């Protein structure tokens, strides 16, 4: 090895520092442990770990839980915790991606109209579909509405700004979102009897519906996550601005489209099942950035892990604070997220 090669190790890009990766993973595992342990029926950490041991076929361990307790753990709590983790990871990853792609720290995954579109789709399904069909069709309607809104945003933004100028795209998003929100509010007013249901959906919640919803969301989220993480180095290049990224050989329009489509598909799937859970996509990436002071290369994977843990914890609060009633998840994320974020803002070294 020559001298240059030795020195080359000094310029290696900071990946995820082991200490932050460890902290993030510990946070997620801790959140999951709390998520499965806390509930109206006390399963005990011992019971949970013995059941887990048995499922993992660790020799000599048999579950100390009863049949009912087993099914509470594996058919009710675990899927809900996993769904919260999947959705939380997706929303923060999408938020971080949008912030990088649009070089704007204030944007969230709902920027390009996905929330307004999904809201309209869900409202239409709740208002006009018969009860029997509604459960199945609502996620599909919300997904289609969200995807349609973002597609319109992109078409409008491209036709006026050649798709290069992010301001045009953001304005197109605002325009499309206003239009869909107007339609949604109109439909809602015409069907006042469904107001409660629509409102509940809009404030967001993790359904306790077993593994079926996890199976429904996971493919979209997994695909979106893989695509975004594969492109994470390029997001750092985009943070220099469109023109410099282009001069460094990045096909800015294409890469941005790929990243936005991936983030949007994942977000739309999450929103379709869980409604509009706000705030996660903004505070999680920012909190990580301020504490760890890192570029997108490390921020994106960390967002997935921390966002997952954050939403699992928020969901624990949502279902236990006023048990047996549930607080809408969007309220919890903002109510507990805002003070936490304020604390991070006050104490951080301003790395953002």
């Amino acid at each position: 090895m020559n001298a240059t090669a030795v020195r080359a190790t000094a310029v290696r890009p900071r990946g995820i520092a082991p200490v932050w990766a460890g902290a993030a993973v510990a946070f997620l595992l801790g959140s999951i442990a709390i998520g499965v342990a806390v509930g109206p029926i006390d399963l005990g950490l011992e019971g949970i770990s013995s059941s887990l041991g048995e499922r993992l076929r660790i020799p000599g361990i048999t579950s100390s839980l009863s049949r009912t307790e087993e099914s509470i753990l594996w058919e009710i709590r675990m899927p809900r915790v996993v769904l919260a983790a999947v959705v939380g990871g997706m929303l923060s990853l999408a938020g971080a991606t949008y912030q990088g792609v649009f070089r704007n720290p204030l944007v969230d995954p709902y920027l390009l109209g996905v929330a307004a579109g999904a809201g309209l789709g869900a409202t239409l399904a709740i208002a006009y579909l018969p009860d029997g069909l509604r459960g199945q069709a609502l996620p599909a309607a919300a997904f289609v509405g969200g995807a349609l809104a973002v597609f319109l945003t992109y078409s409008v933004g491209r036709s006026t700004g050649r798709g290069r100028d992010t301001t045009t795209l953001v304005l197109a998003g605002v325009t499309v979102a206003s239009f869909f929100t107007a339609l949604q509010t109109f439909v809602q007013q015409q069907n006042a009897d469904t107001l409660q249901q629509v409102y509940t959906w809009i404030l967001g919640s993790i359904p306790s519906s077993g593994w079926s919803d996890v199976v429904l969301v996971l493919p979209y989220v997994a695909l979106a996550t893989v695509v975004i993480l594969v492109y994470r180095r390029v997001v750092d290049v985009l943070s220099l601005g469109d023109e410099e990224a282009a001069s460094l050989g990045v096909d800015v329009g294409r890469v941005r489209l790929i990243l936005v489509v991936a983030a949007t598909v994942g977000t739309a799937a999450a929103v379709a099942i869980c409604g509009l859970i706000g705030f996660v996509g903004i505070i999680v990436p920012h909190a990580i950035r301020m504490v760890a002071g890192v570029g997108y290369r490390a921020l994106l994977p960390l967002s997935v892990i921390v966002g997952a843990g954050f939403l699992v914890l928020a969901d624990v609060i949502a279902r236990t604070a006023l048990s047996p009633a549930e607080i809408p998840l969007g309220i919890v994320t903002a109510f507990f997220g805002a003070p936490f974020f304020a604390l991070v803002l006050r104490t951080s070294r301003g790395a953002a």
Partner: protein
Amino acid sequence: MSAIRLTAVTVTLGGRRVVDQVDLVVEEGAWVAVIGPNGAGKTTLLRAVARLLPFAGSIELDGRATAAMRRSELSRLIAVVPQDPSTPSWMTVGEYVLLGRTPHLGALAKEGRRDLEAVARALERLDLSGFGARPLGTLSGGEKQRVVVARALAQEARIILLDEPTAALDIGHQQQALDLLDVLRAESGLTLVAAMHDLTLAAQYAERMVLLDSGRVVADGVPRDVLTEETIARHYGASIDIVPVDGRVAVIPRRARWLIPDRRVRGDGCDQAWRGER
């Protein structure tokens, strides 16, 4: 062989022809300063060469039209040092210079040893070897400029376009930066094209000057042929003296005494007249 060949290049921005029918051939290894008054189209011309905005006409590098190249291929041939590069304060010098490897990587690849070595070499040549882990936010203006040039070097392109490379630097750092580019050019056969405002400085380094006015090339040649009192007066509206120094020339602005009532001569303190003639 010509490194860059522009044929009837026209750039229209907001309905205005900012670059107008420019024909230009830059030989390989040349050091060309593009000069001209504010708004003459210098920056726009450089951006067109790097295909950062749409243009009419044709631009060829080594005989191949840039319009037909992939973005990454073009960026392996041309590196750009922008006038006001964005330098995110959290990024380290090493990470930033490593971004110069982007065109060699493809969208999905990860940096390998060759890339890290190219970065190490670039840092070494710019005397930045100990800086790899420093965040950009902690650097001075002169250091930042060197880091940006290091990024362009790590790109390993044979042509470097520089937009006002010395505008933000004091005279010591200006000299350092341009000396450095001179050395790099001599060692590696780089082709340098720089838009510059400081005519005297440009005249000391560039072998050739291209004077733009209203988007057209109005003079082209060695500095002492391009920099004449008459051309500068016509295109910059400036009144200057040209002073030869060691075969190069310096541009000295003539102070406009006719604008100011000369109290030392008159001494009467009651003269309010601004004599409006030269």
